[in-house]
């Protein structure tokens, strides 16, 4: 039964990801702009021969349905096509930009969980007291502060002012990246046992990760607080307290575990959002990630890259929600019985 459920979910995921690419494909093609003009210079775009050659080269002269069919056929072979702007396979672009994003958003997600859940618990158990108010104010700030502003403020303060943070970018200028294995600098430098590079990579990552985490921490804290408050009002919590179980244990073992279910859902989606890219943070911290790549592809009407990224982003979201659903089995065994 469980296997069938998982299979059904996976098939649904793939179909939904494809549907997303179809929608984006159609929308991108209804824009009244010619992709050739985003790629060719003034002189070249005035030469009909050059333009025709360009259209043929990138399949833009084919009917729409054929262009989409070519994308699907490629996808079936695991090939996302070739980017018009970078002139190399979209997969190569993704392989280059994804590790920077994965590394950064994973650290941000880690920070989020590390900070958001305890803060939420603190706010819940100290409901309506000073700590609660402070935490809620902090959340409000984190959620509502514009990212570009926060990013620049952090950079100006810690890099420009206090001079404790390193320069924007993944490493210092001209620093040699660790030998490529995964593309994740933290992992690769560990594999190479290069501690200096590991430290440098981590140091470069902290500030942007904190900025990214600022908004998600707010969300996670709020959800933890609300959910924990609800759980603390449940009958079984009252029963536990009546039995004389220590309050810390009541909160941690009886209430928190159940209260975390909505937090996991939200956390999964927040992580997917971080992975999907964060253009502004990447811009300010010169972070060579997927966010900027996707943005550049979109403004240049780079159809293969747009479609490829749509598919990947949709897949990431769907896989994350799948993982979240499956994790319920562990967190709340009742889900399986239901």
């Amino acid at each position, binding site marked *: 039964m469980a296997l069938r459920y998982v299979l059904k979910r996976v098939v649904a995921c793939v179909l939904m990801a494809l549907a997303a690419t179809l929608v984006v494909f159609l929308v991108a093609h209804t824009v009244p702009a010619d992709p050739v003009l985003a790629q060719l210079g003034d002189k070249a775009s005035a030469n009909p021969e050059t333009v025709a050659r360009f259209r043929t080269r990138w399949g833009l002269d084919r009917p729409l349905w054929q262009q989409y069919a070519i994308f699907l056929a490629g996808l079936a072979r695991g090939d996302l096509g070739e980017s018009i702007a970078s002139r190399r396979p979209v997969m190569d672009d993704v392989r280059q930009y994804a590790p920077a994003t994965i590394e950064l958003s994973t650290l941000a997600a880690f920070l989020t969980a590390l900070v958001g859940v305890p803060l939420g618990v603190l706010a819940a158990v100290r409901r309506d007291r000073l700590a609660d108010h402070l935490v809620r104010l902090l959340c409000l700030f984190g959620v509502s502060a514009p990212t570009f502003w926060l990013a620049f403020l952090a950079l100006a303060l810690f890099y420009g002012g206090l001079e404790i943070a390193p320069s924007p970018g993944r490493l210092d200028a001209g620093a040699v990246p660790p030998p490529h294995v995964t593309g994740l600098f933290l992992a690769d430098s560990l594999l190479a046992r290069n501690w200096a590079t590991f430290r440098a990579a981590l140091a470069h990552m902290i500030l942007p990760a904190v900025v990214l985490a600022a908004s998600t921490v707010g969300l996670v804290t709020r959800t933890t607080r609300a959910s924990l408050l609800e759980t603390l009002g449940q009958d079984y919590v009252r029963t536990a307290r009546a039995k004389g179980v220590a309050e810390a244990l009541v909160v*941690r073992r009886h209430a928190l575990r159940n209260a975390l279910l909505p937090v996991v859902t939200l956390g999964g989606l927040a992580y997917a959002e971080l992975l999907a890219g964060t253009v502004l943070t990447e811009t300010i911290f010169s972070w060579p990630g997927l966010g900027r790549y996707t943005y550049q592809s979109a403004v240049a009407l780079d159809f293969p890259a747009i479609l490829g990224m749509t598919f990947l982003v949709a897949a990431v979201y769907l896989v994350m929600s799948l993982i979240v659903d499956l994790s319920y089995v562990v967190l709340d065994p009742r889900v399986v019985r239901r």
Partner: protein
Amino acid sequence: MPTARPIPSSTRPTRFGTLLLVLLAALAGARPSPVTAAGKTTLVLGIDISDSRTFDPARQFEYSPPTTMRAAYETLVTMTPGDYVHVKPLLAKSWKLVDGGKAWQFQLREGVKFASGNPLTAEDVKFSFERLINVKDQPAEIAENIASVEVVDPLTVKLVMADKSQPLLNILSSVTFAVYDSKTVKAQGGTSGKDAEKADKATAWLDQHSAGTGPYVLTSWVRNSELVLERNKGYWRAPAAFERVVIRHSSDSAAQLLALRRGDLDAAFNLTPDQLNGLGRDASLRIVSTTSLDFLYMTVTSGAELNKALGTRAARQALAHAIDYDGIIKGLMAGQATRPATFIPVGLDGSTEALTKEIGYREDLPLAKKLLTEAGLAGGFSFKLTYAKAAIAGTSYDVVAQKIQSDLARVGITAELDPMDQTTLRTQYKEGKSQSVLTFWNPDAPEPYLWAAASIQRVAKRVRWTVPKELTDLVTRAGGEPDPAKQAGYYREYQKALVDQANYIMLVQPVFRVATSRTVSDFDLTAAGWVVDLYDVKPAE
């Protein structure tokens, strides 16, 4: 509701605290050591290189790569900063017109070696230019006047022109005409044959390496991140001053400024006018500048079917005389700009600031009103002004458009602002569907004919102007004229005609400004295409 009691401190927050401390320690530990001027071996430049898509000379056609290209590759002839009229020798030590003016013959310098150690020969020039033409990528467009390349002897090469009435020499100073090591490029899958469009496979290698004679060698490029150049040890002149040049990608000007101030960058290329003006107080920095060959201009259609008023010349002229040009340059560009009379930027043969004063438009409201009355539009008229969400030298088009709108309102002309994205605008504009567009022009190579020809050919179509044959002939005559003084005379006549026609209104020709640290010197900017010749830059004494 039960009263909640505080949770004991032995749980998570402490472990979290330890982790945070570890992270902070890592952050503090990686603080870079300060850069000292003495013994400076690496030059670090902060540039927005997000437009870079290749470093293959036969394919590269974007805005930022020429600075890198020019450090790794050299051309037959070049231009020195500030002089875009007279070409100077580089790989060629002399040249002359031969075969009755149908071909240019170049005498190559002896003893020049590529970074690979292979000697430079005429064969390499032939291979490079033929590959450029046959790969048929964008840069091939500006090589259209090369009909064939002939090797006369190992150090003599002849370029036969397709049309001897069209210019070639100045264009050869562009990095597009980089000469590369044919042996190395062939070994990496390069070919210059007729089938090069499909058969050539050298681009991937050329994106990560260079095969030129330049003072530096490209050793790595990570897209949207950084690229590294290393000193070419066998360079034919004195070796370059730095062991390494790192070009650090940064598309945020505020972050560039912070990095420059911290000493992590030696130069910041993309600062805004406000940021540059705020640098005056900082003694450790200096601003270097040069007038660019770029310009921001406004096109006005002649198509009465798009806008009845603009279809009359007097109405277009009235519009041109109602703009406060000095206000734009002083108020919006912080005075860091000039303005050409029409479609040839100041600095090229035939275009000077004096000429702009003499024949260009000037703000003259009574004249504008008189012209409006002449056109039967005493009550004014309205039109749509389209522009992209972009900026010139850090000043957004939005601001310029608003200024024009308020200027024109003074004579009763209403500009309806119509901002849109770049690609949509180009699509609409190229099809001649725009009434008026605020847009940008930057050079392929410092040859005035490229501007003049565009203005009466493809750009004229976009503004629905049917160019008279006499004017076309005049431009052809100017293009083929070898004597700069005579050529300037022809171009002067051409510019007068364009000003009278009033389809193009030049607004701003910005000054390039780069902020550099005082730890480096000889940072001489050029407008010829490559911003700065990195070979000139040295550590400060």
